[in-house]
């Protein structure tokens, strides 16, 4: 499901035009990312937490050339699902 499909399904549920939904979604995304940039954790009830984690710098070695490279530290967004969501997902049968 891509962005368009998501907006369409949301518009159907809210009985609102797609343009309004798209605008609201955009503002939510920008507010969320702004909060994450400020290094804050966002918790959505019954969905999960978004938080920023710092990956420390590390030394990596190229397996074939043996060149050692120092990878600088970086900040990444991490999502952890809530237990409620996890329980919901248990209903899906696994077939592979």
């Amino acid at each position, binding site marked *: 499901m891509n962005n368009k499909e998501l907006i369409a399904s949301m518009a159907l549920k809210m009985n609102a035009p797609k343009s309004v939904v798209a605008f609201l979604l955009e503002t939510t995304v920008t507010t969320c990312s702004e909060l*994450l940039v400020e290094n804050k954790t966002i918790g959505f009830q019954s969905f999960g937490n978004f938080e920023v984690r710092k990956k420390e710098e590390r030394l990596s070695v190229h397996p074939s050339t043996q*060149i*050692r490279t120092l990878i600088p530290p970086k*900040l990444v967004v991490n999502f952890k699902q809530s237990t409620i969501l*996890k329980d919901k997902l248990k209903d899906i049968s696994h077939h592979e």
Partner: protein
Amino acid sequence: MNKEKISSQEIIDLVASKASVSKRAAEEFLKVMIVSVEEGLLAGEVVKIKNFGTFKLQWNEPRKSVNVQTGDEILITGYYKVVFVPDAVLKEQVNEPFAHLEPVELDIQTKKNELIIEEEAVSDPLRLFNEQASEIKNLISEIQALSSKSTNADPEKKIDKEIIAEKEQTIVTDVTDQEIEETSTDDELQVIIDHEVELNEENQDYPPVTIDNEKDNYQVQLEIPEEDLNSDLPTTPYLDNIKSSNKRKVWVWSLLILLLLSISGTGAYLYYSSQSDFSDKNSATKISEKISITEILNTISGWFTPAAKPVTKSKTIVIPKDTTAFDSISQIQPVDSIQILFDNPRVYTDFIASERIKEGSRLTIMSKRYYGNKDFWVYIYEANKDKIMNPDNIAIGTLIRIPKLDPRLIDVSNPRCIEKAKELHDIYIN
């Protein structure tokens, strides 16, 4: 790191104020959003939100675990996990504080380390050998002390031991002499060849020496039982042990010496073969076929290159002359204008902004902010050269002026501009 947790209620408030809608509408929207994302996931789909990221499901296989308290085995059932992969836009926004950092290759340092290790390897056998020599000397002196202690020590036995000691010492001195010769007279290849001959001679020499020692040992062992009748017992096994260890040591030496000589010989040989640039023919004639072959190859290639090289050289020289001197065609002009822009010394007169250096300020970050690419920091540095001693470490409180640059110079889409900036970067950093 202080981590404030923002609840969904706060998000709702923020969204409501930003989008200027009622809180109820915002709340409803957020609920619907989460529900539809969940639905998408439950349907086994990948849900993508623009500029934010994608949610997908990941199957975690069932695995065995152990109850920490009871030690019983438990089976953790497989489950689905929601994985969030942030969009490139969000990634960049979040990683802003570290965006100026780049991976650094450390291969130059490792090469140096390798060299050091090689040197150590060369010096190691010598050190080892010296240690062993001193160890054996100590052992010999111990034996002598022991034999003098024992009351009715046979004079004959003493002499034998002294002979052994002398022999061992002569071996030690011989070898050390050779070592010194080896290391000091690395001047001519002839010497090395001589050494190799010596080495072969020594090869033949060693077995008799050891056999002699063994003979001595037998003599001693034969004599000792006779003495045992009236002398104290514990001396004999001790002596035997020492003898056998000496024997072993002699073998170890001989092997070590051979190894060392061959290694240093070949090392010096290779070193000289690469060094003697076929200039002094005296040595060249002496050395083996390897060099003569390379010499032949060199001369062969020499016949071909004089004919070929001048042609290519003249070609490469002629082309730029033509374009610069006679060309007024518009096709080449834009390229040249940038080149001229690059080559001319830049004069900074206009400034867009000025910034004071704070803790954590970086020219690369400023460059990214004002010019759109961190590589263009070199121009900021150039404009403020009088104030910056070291671009890697600028004093806090320094007022940095951001120069107004020709847009062609800082064209992010033009790889040549970035290339040029990187060139300058290399000049200033190294």
